[in-house]
C-alpha cells in the first residue's frame, strides 16, 4: 500500500483501535495494546494440572522437599514477603490487580500494579551481548500479521522446590492478540508457551485473557511492604495477621 493510502486508511479507521504506530514508513497499521488490563479469571487458562517434569526435575523436587518441607505458607511465602514475581507468573497470575501497557514505536512497556514491576518488550533489532538474568528477562517482539510474537530469555531461574521452577534454559514465546469485541468487550489474548527442556519434558501453552479496564480505572500505587511501614509510622502494635 502506498504511504498516502496507508495514512488515509489510518485516518478513516480512527484512533480507537488502530494507533497506526509504525517503526518504518512501509509498515502497516498495528493493533494497539495500550491501556489498563485486568486478568479474566473465568476465561483464562491455567498451568497444567500435572506438570510434565523431566525425571531429573522430579528427583530434584523430591530431594528439595525432603530437606525443606513442611513449609508454613502463611508465614514463609516469598511473595507475601514482597519478593516479586518472575515471568511467566507475572502473565499467568489471576488476581484483582491490573497492569498497564504503554506502546511506543521501539518498545512496549508493561507496568504491573502488584510489585510495581516494569517489563520492556523491544521491537527493534536484536541486541547483542550477554545479559544478566532478571525477573522480567529480556523480551523481543515481532509482528506476524496482527499478532505480536514475543520471545523472552534470560529469566532469573527459580529453585527446584518452587511452585513454578525454572532453569536458565527457560524460554517463553507469547502471542499477543487484540480482540476488540470479545465476550467481555475489548480483550487482550495472550497465549504463553513455556519451553524449559531442563524442567519440562515438553512445552505447554497457557491461554490468558485480559479485559480492558473500565474508563478512568488506572494502575494504583501499591507498595508491597506498605502495611509494615504504616504500622512502623503509626506506632501501633496490633498484630498484622499475615506477617
Amino acid at each position, binding site marked *: 500500500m502506498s504511504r498516502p493510502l496507508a495514512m488515509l486508511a489510518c485516518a478513516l479507521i480512527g484512533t480507537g483501535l488502530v494507533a497506526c504506530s509504525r517503526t518504518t514508513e512501509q509498515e502497516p497499521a498495528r493493533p494497539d495494546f495500550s491501556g489498563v488490563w485486568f486478568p479474566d*479469571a473465568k476465561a483464562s487458562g*491455567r*498451568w497444567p*494440572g*500435572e506438570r510434565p517434569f523431566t525425571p531429573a526435575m522430579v528427583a530434584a*523436587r*523430591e530431594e528439595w*522437599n525432603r530437606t525443606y*518441607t*513442611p*513449609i508454613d*505458607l*502463611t508465614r514463609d*511465602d516469598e*511473595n*507475601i514477603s514482597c519478593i516479586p514475581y518472575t515471568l511467566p507468573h507475572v502473565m499467568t*497470575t*489471576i*488476581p*484483582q*490487580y491490573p497492569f498497564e501497557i504503554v506502546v511506543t514505536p521501539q518498545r512496549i512497556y508493561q507496568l504491573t*500494579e*502488584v510489585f510495581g514491576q516494569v517489563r520492556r518488550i523491544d521491537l527493534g533489532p536484536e541486541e547483542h551481548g550477554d545479559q544478566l538474568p532478571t525477573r522480567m528477562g529480556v523480551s523481543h517482539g515481532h509482528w506476524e500479521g496482527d499478532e505480536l510474537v514475543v520471545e523472552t530469555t534470560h529469566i532469573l531461574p527459580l529453585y527446584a*522446590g*518452587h*511452585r*513454578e521452577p525454572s532453569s536458565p534454559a527457560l524460554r517463553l514465546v507469547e502471542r499477543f492478540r487484540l480482540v476488540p469485541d470479545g465476550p467481555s468487550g475489548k480483550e487482550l489474548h495472550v497465549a504463553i508457551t513455556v519451553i524449559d527442556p531442563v524442567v519440562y519434558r515438553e512445552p505447554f501453552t497457557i491461554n490468558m485473557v485480559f479485559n480492558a479496564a473500565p474508563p478512568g*480505572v488506572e494502575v*494504583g*500505587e*501499591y*507498595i*508491597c511492604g*506498605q*502495611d509494615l511501614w*504504616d*504500622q512502623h509510622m503509626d506506632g*501501633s502494635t*496490633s*498484630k*498484622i*495477621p*499475615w506477617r
Partner: protein
Amino acid sequence: MRRLVIAVIALLGLGIAVPALAHHSVANFDFTKSATVTGTVTYFSFTNPHSFIDMKVKDARGVEHAYKFFTVARVVMMRTGWALDDLKPGDTVTVTGSPDRKTPEFMYLSRIVFASGKVWNHDPALQK
C-alpha cells in the same frame, strides 16, 4: 477448576508446596461458615497488600471480645467502592465474615455496614 483441585490434592499427597493461585494463601479461613457481629472499631489498617480492622464486640452476656477482620488490598477496596472516609476508629459497624479455622475471632471480611449505613461487599471467591 476441577483439574486444579485434583492437582492440588495430588501435590499435597507428594508433600510438595501447593502452588497458591492467590497472592496470599487464605486456606486458614473456613469459607463454609459465616458469622455477623456488631462492634466498635479500635484500629483500621487501610493499606496494601491487605487491610485489616480490629474491633471490640460485646457478646450476649456483655463480655467484650477482640475481633480482627482481614480483607483485600487498599487499591482493590478503593476500586470497588470503599471511600477514604468510610471507616475510622470509634465507628460502630456490623461485619459479616468467615472465621479462621483455629481462631474464630479472626475473620475474612465479606460484608460491612458502615456507621453511615453504607454497605460494602466483597466476594471471598475473589480473595487474594
